């Protein structure tokens, strides 16, 4: 266990977890409003391809990131329309959205396959980035990575300290009571789904503009689904989502480092850990987790929505 190994794992885990975390934070907002989006994968891809395309055309990675977020937000509204207005089954609608995102992004991105762009720059923080070891792990990243924890804090603050957040959570728990309190459940759900889409789009954009700095079909490789699992694992809590995302990212980084060193543990077994942990947690910490699930989601899982 050398320092370079640990450094590799930690830095790698931060970098690989970024896109998943953004998507997970978005999904926390969405699910807190009582909607589950199984199609986050598609949304992320839309963010990734739009971001890449805009960056390739304009030369500005920042513009690309913003465009990616917005495009994904609008894309997610499809789900909102189906599920909130047309009252379609959420699980099926989400999967349909995933396929749509897969296909549409592939079409949009075809001309850009293999192209190179100037992605998000790393922004080393003066002085801090020069610190030995820690400097390289923590203070030499791009803007989206720096914003990870503040974003989680923002999501937390909005959900738990603002009227909008309270209203959103009320809608996710009990639309009838929310309505009795004078709220507009449908509008709030639309807003939540849009914001969730924007965040997932930012995650996708990070993938194409920072992590891989390229575009390929289906490049999220299941990260969208991981985000959904993460949200459950994190009991719909923004800060736990950060920890969970780092765990997932860590597993990914760990296996890369181990492979590079020719170690024997199968990376696939490592990859299983987060899912098995989620299952275990759901089973054994029943009281906490079951209670943590927004009531509105329970109806989805019972097959009644």
């Amino acid at each position, binding site marked *: 266990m050398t320092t370079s190994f640990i450094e590799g794992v930690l830095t790698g885990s931060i970098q690989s977890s970024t896109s998943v975390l953004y998507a997970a934070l978005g999904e926390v907002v969405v699910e807190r409003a009582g909607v589950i989006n199984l199609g986050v994968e598609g949304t992320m891809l839309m963010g990734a391809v739009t971001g890449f395309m805009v960056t390739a055309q304009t030369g500005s990675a920042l513009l690309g990131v913003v465009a990616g977020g917005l495009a994904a937000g609008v894309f997610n509204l499809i789900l909102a329309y189906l599920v909130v207005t047309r009252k379609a089954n959420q699980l099926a609608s989400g999967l349909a959205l995933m396929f749509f995102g897969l296909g549409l992004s592939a079409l949009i991105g075809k001309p850009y396959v293999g192209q190179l762009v100037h992605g998000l720059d790393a922004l080393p923080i003066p002085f801090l980035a020069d610190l030995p070891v820690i400097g390289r792990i923590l203070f030499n990243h791009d803007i989206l990575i720096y914003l990870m924890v503040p974003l989680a804090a923002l999501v937390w603050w909005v959900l738990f300290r603002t*009227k909008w957040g309270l209203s959103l959570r009320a809608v996710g728990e009990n639309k009838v*009571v929310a309505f009795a*309190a004078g709220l507009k459940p449908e509008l709030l759900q639309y807003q939540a789904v849009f914001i969730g889409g924007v965040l997932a789009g930012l995650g996708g954009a990070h993938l194409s503009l920072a992590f891989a700095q390229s575009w390929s079909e289906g490049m999220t490789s299941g990260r969208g689904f991981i985000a959904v699992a993460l949200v459950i694992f994190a009991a719909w809590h923004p800060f736990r989502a950060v920890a969970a995302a780092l765990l997932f990212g860590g597993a990914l980084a760990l296996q890369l480092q181990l492979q590079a060193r020719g170690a024997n543990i199968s990376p696939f077994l490592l990859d299983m850990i987060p899912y098995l942990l989620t299952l275990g947690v759901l089973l054994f910490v029943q009281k906490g987790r079951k209670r943590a699930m*927004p009531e509105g989601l329970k109806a989805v899982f019972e097959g009644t929505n």
Partner: protein
Amino acid sequence: MLTQVQAPTNLATPLLEARGLVKQFGDLRANDNVNIAIYPGEVHAILGENGAGKSTLMKMLYGFYQPTAGQIFLNGQPMIINSPQDGRRLGIGMVFQNFTLIPALTVIENVALFLPDLRAVFSQKEIEQRIKEASAKYDLRVDPRATVGELSMGEQQKVEILKIILAGAKVLIFDEPTSVLAPHEVGGLFQVFNKLRADGYAILFITHKMPEVMAVADRITVLRRGRVVETMPVAGATETELVTMLLGSAPPEAARITQFKDTTGQTPLLIFDRITVPDEQTKIGLKEVSFQVFPGEIVGVAGVSGNGQQTLIEAALGLRPHTAGTIHLMGENVANWPVEKKLQAGLGCIPEDPLLMGAIPGMRVYENMILGEQHQYADQGGLSMNWKRVRDKATQFLNSTFISSAPRLEVMVETLSGGNLQRVIIAREVGRQPKLLIAYYVARGLDISNAEAARRLLLKHREQGMGILLISEDLDELFALSDRLLVMHHGHIVGTFRPQETTAHDVGILMTGGTITHA
């Protein structure tokens, strides 16, 4: 005629007043010319049996219904209350039996949700402070940071009250507030009423329980069949007076239709021996309940709904485990028997909620007729269903039960009216000729002639040796049909009589939690 109601104090203007209020639903006049006035600093009870029109009246007062006729006045000004939100804005707050609380949120958050002046970014501390002040003032002690789901029903009720007070209500309307409380919490609630009353709030509460009225109300309005029987101060009224007003003059010593049966020497069909079932949050359990049902007799169970009757049925069927005592069916201890086995042994049940518990809405009438007995109509070990036999049987059941216009076999059950569904269920359960039939509220949704027919059906089968456990709130029905009568309250059996040994009046007192004191 619009009339003014007697003012209890020197205050001339009631906080909330209704004059000549009428609510008509088609042919049914739920409220007929109701006059009521509530003054600040008053606790006003509305007493009435089920179906007397209490909740309709409440719903008009807080804006859920619009009156068909009559007017509502707030502080002397005529008002039209279009919706519950409207009502809240005008200062009328309502506490239902089903709380409008979100269990996953904290007390602070639940209160905040209903505050009319909540800012975009709000301070939890500030709301917490407001809650604490009101808590201390009105004895509504509850931890503001607690998650509502973890609170007891009594504490949740306190949160509901805090919620409407802090939202600005001046008139507080309660719908059967003690029905969700444990006996020891009721006193606490009345303390709260007293504190609120002292501060000028007006409290209106619906109840059918006599002791409560005597304990806390200033004035009482008795409703019967949609009309106000009387409004009078509680001080100086006696329980007897009130019960008479409640049940109508001269509660009938209902004529017995049948002869009393001698059951000595026979094996009881059903024995409950000191059965105890723990309470669940919304359902009262059983406390050392013991009774027997013999063949050829009808045992009536009187009690206000929600006092353990549901648990009684679930324990008998085996859906809820009992923590003490034994149950014997047809002479055998059925401790671990699955439901199927009990049904096969000859147990039948007309459930409390036919649509939820007794029928498959998406299936047709004839398909529902064999629910629970489907294997008897399966040929070749289950590979095919003999639908012809099913239809014949269904027709037979329906014809033997209905006096008129039985629903067609092909009709989807979900389209049936409540009354028709009930008749289908009765046809099924009685037609199977169980040895022991548990019937909850047999006449639900039935008009007079069909209700009579249903009762006659039960009596006929009793003659043929069926044992029937008849659970009902209708004292007339119970007195007319029962060989023996049990009275349930809060999960206990508080009385066992032969109908001719008691009166509806006494049973009514026991049902509402009082004790019989006359010599």
